[in-house]
């Protein structure tokens, strides 16, 4: 019984890591957004499963948020932004995709070793989820660091968030999870970024951060 | 009584150096002339010169200041005091402890200081050249002198000339340091007295003058006082060499007139020999270019330092 719950939870969390890798692998903007939607959906499933096995009905809220907001609304919105702004459909990378993936594998290994070693006392489910969450977090960061486009950086950031919500739900009985997920995902990821994207659009022709970076405060 | 005798002896010494100084000048000039196969002026000529100068009117430059007029007397006084404090015929005179060798050096320095200043007072280029070069020589000669003082002081354990002289009388031995000090002292003496090869006391060629250049604007009694001061300085250095390196014959402290008599005789003899050697040296060497002088004085400085170092080190054996 317990084994089964655990296996499913394990599978879903592991699935997220896998999807994170898929995110890293994408080189087309729309594909990226689609994969991100998948990421959110898997997160949603995972959180819902946790709600189920922890008998914590309030956790269904973050699951729903993840599904609706990040699985549907944000990808669609970004999709339209990309079209409307005429943003390049290709993702510019700093490091080639192959090396990035290799790096990602190393990061996952690192987080596994660190987490599994550290959380020996925690229950196995939480432990593995934490390890996966850390992996997702690091992969998200890696994505932000190795992609030049603003959209992919936003996606990277949101995948970090997904990881965090996974960790928060895996931490059994953690208070404020709902609040945190609401505050975090809704407020941070969309509104403000949206506002800024809009303003940046107003001022500049591109949300490509490199173009933005041309306007340095102090360049001679 | 003892005090009065002491005061008399001290007074005699003061007067002695004053009287003797022009004589030494006349003597060296005469000797020099002889060595150069000339007849030369009479030995007493310096006295006559001084008297004649004193009687002449003073021609002052228009912009000469009070310093210019009072300078010669201060120069003279400082030199005279220094000369009078060097034991000549007797050690440990009444006021011999007033100033030790360092102070005597500094007194000579005072007179040089004023001489250089008055050289600049009128604002002529020759005066400036003299002052400037004189101070450059001094900047090397004075440390050399200090090194000599140090060497002697380390040897005798005192900077008091009387004590040094007594030490040399009793503990004389040939020491490398002493030899070095002697050579250094001779070099310094030549430089300080503006003798060949550093300067030519007889020159009146403008660009080679150093000592004379500073006195160029002086005339009459002022010049007389300055000339006398120069003569005193020469005597001073000869006395100094005599007192330190050939101290024999000097009367010890508190001895009677007889001892003073022999002391005086031996002193005169030493000065005579010293003057002779000086002249011989001077006639056998040519004057240097101005910027060779620092090397010459540098040798003195090095010798002095070497002598002192040797002593510092040998003290521990």
């Amino acid at each position, binding site marked *: 019984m317990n084994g089964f719950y655990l296996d499913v939870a394990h599978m879903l969390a592991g699935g997220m890591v896998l999807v994170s890798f898929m995110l890293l692998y994408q080189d087309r903007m729309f594909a990226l957004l689609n994969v991100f939607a998948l990421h959110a959906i898997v997160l949603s499933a995972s959180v819902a499963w946790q709600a189920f096995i922890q008998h914590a009905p309030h956790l269904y809220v973050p699951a729903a948020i993840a599904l609706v907001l990040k699985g549907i609304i944000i990808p669609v919105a970004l999709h339209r932004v990309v079209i409307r702004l005429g943003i390049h459909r290709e993702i510019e990378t700093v490091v080639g995709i192959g090396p990035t993936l290799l790096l990602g594998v190393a990061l996952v290994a690192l987080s596994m070793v*660190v*987490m599994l070693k550290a959380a020996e*006392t*925690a229950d196995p489910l939480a432990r593995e989820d934490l390890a996966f*969450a850390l992996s997702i977090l690091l992969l998200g960061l890696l994505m932000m660091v190795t992609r030049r486009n603003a959209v992919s950086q936003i996606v990277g950031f949101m995948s970090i968030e997904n990881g965090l919500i996974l960790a928060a739900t895996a931490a059994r009985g953690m*208070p404020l999870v709902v609040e945190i997920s609401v505050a975090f995902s809704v407020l941070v990821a969309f509104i403000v970024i949206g506002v800024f994207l809009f303003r940046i659009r107003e001022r500049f022709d591109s949300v490509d951060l490199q173009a933005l970076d041309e306007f340095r*405060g*102090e360049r001679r | 009584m003892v005090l009065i005798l002491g005061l008399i002896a001290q007074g005699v010494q003061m007067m002695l150096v004053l009287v003797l100084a022009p004589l030494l000048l006349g003597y060296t000039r005469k000797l020099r002339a002889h060595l150069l196969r000339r007849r030369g002026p009479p030995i007493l000529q310096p006295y006559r010169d001084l008297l004649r100068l004193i009687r002449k009117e003073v021609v002052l430059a228009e912009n000469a200041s009070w310093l210019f007029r009072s300078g010669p007397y201060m120069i003279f006084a400082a030199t005279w005091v220094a000369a009078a404090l060097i034991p000549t015929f007797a050690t440990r005179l009444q006021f011999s402890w007033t100033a030790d060798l360092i102070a005597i050096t500094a007194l000579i320095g005072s007179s040089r200081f004023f001489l250089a200043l008055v050289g600049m007072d009128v604002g002529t280029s020759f005066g400036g050249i003299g002052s400037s070069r004189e101070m450059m020589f001094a900047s090397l000669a004075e440390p050399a002198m200090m090194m000599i003082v140090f060497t002697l002081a380390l040897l005798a354990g005192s900077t008091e000339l009387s004590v040094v002289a007594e030490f040399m009388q009793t503990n004389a031995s040939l020491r490398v340091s002493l030899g070095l000090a002697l050579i250094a002292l001779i070099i310094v003496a030549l430089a300080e007295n503006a003798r060949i090869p550093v300067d030519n006391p007889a020159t009146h060629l403008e660009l080679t003058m150093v000592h004379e250049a500073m006195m160029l604007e002086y005339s009459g009694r002022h010049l007389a006082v300055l000339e006398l001061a120069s003569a005193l300085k020469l005597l001073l250095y000869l006395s100094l060499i005599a007192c330190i390196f050939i101290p024999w014959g000097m009367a010890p402290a508190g001895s009677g007139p007889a001892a003073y008599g022999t002391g005086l005789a031996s002193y005169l003899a030493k000065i005579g020999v010293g003057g002779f050697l000086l002249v011989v040296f001077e006639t056998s060497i040519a004057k240097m270019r101005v910027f060779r002088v620092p090397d010459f004085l540098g040798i003195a400085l090095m010798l002095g330092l070497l002598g002192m170092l040797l002593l510092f080190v040998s003290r521990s054996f």
Partner: protein
Amino acid sequence: MNGFLAQFTFEPLTAVLIIPAATAGLLALLPSYWAAARLNVLATFLTLIAAVSLLFSRPPAGGYLFVDDLNNVFIVLTTFVAFTTSVFSASYIGHELEIGRLTPLHLRFYHAMYQTLMFAMNLGLTANNIGLMWVAIELATLTTVLMVGIYRTHEALEAAWKYFILGSVGIALALFGTILVYMAARPVIGEGADAMVWTTLIDNASSFSPELLNIAFVFLLLGYGTKVGLAPLHAWLPDAHAEGPTPISAVLSGLLLNVALYALLRFKMLLAVNPGALAPGPLMITLGLLSLIFAAFMLYRRRDIKRMFAYSSIEHMGIIVFAFGMGGPLANFAGLLHMVMHSLTKSAIFFAVGHIAQAKGTQKIAEMGGLTETNPVLGWGLVLGVVAIAGLPPLGIFMSEFLVVTSTFARQPALAILLVFGLLVGFGALFLRLNSIAFGEPRGASAEATASYVPMFAHLALVFAAGIYLPPQLVIWFQNVAKLLG
């Protein structure tokens, strides 16, 4: 939820939170700039009174809020600087309105955000729940992001964007750290809200899993360290300071950095209690020194006066973190004192800089000169401020630097030498620039500044007084805190 509400029956503590929150709403509705600025001052003043009264009647620790010696220092400091800044802001922002850099609508937004920021910071400081603390700091960050971008120039938006992205990543890291702390606490304390209550955590921290705590601290250090502005996480700080309105620069440097630092200190205390955990000291020392030396070098090439002082904030945060990293009663005391002094001094400097920039019509150092000649009060105020921030006596920062350096040199000579090196390099840069700003032939426009000098000189007077005399009560208080910090 009930517990949360129950907290609000305690008077001063409630007031500290309620007043800003309520005023924020009010200000959002108030159209008149004049009234808004005054209401702003009034509200911050009332908050200050409430904060000071916390010193005398301290409520017992609740599940969500609590006050102890440590956060009381921060609360009083925050509310005080918030009050003086609001006074400064009233005269500063009016000028911005006159020259048309801001519209009345912007100002309404600005004032509301100001109070929201105060609320967020006070909440972060009084929170007894590490989750609540995280939420509050997050809120504070977001409000400042909006305020930094308020001028909507290229540079301002860029600065806000940079601040936002880096801040968000920091926030994410901090949240992960918070979750990990909860994970570490759960086996000991049990599930539920208790495992996030700080007072409970500190009581039981000795039996937490040290490995988890270690990882948590790494994340928290990076997360909150971003807010503190530690190098190399500092990148948002100079631009945010330089491009936002000056009152916000003052609040950022003087307060927000402290709030993040406070969070860091709380977690440091958790680690310090646990015997198996990594000593947090060396990590903080390293980052502190790195920030100090890095910022000191960065000071040299700055052309923008506000950006320069922003780097100086990084430098001082480095010193403070270094001091807390060293630990021990002397260094902790010094760190605390340094933090207070730095807040007061740096905000005073920003007050001066704000008026200077308005008088000169620019923030470029090259276009200012001879200020002591053209605007003597501002010029000398700036000189005094820089003298203070550079750690010269008889001003307060000297005392804390004295304690940090001497106590470090006796324990870790090599570290002290690095510290001294950084201080000296920074010193050289500050005075190099000060010389050209305050002295020499006057340069640039020489408009009369219509300024309220009271806040600036009030701060400097306090710093001066502290450099000479510290009241014994304050000392005992700080010493208690130093003991708390271990």
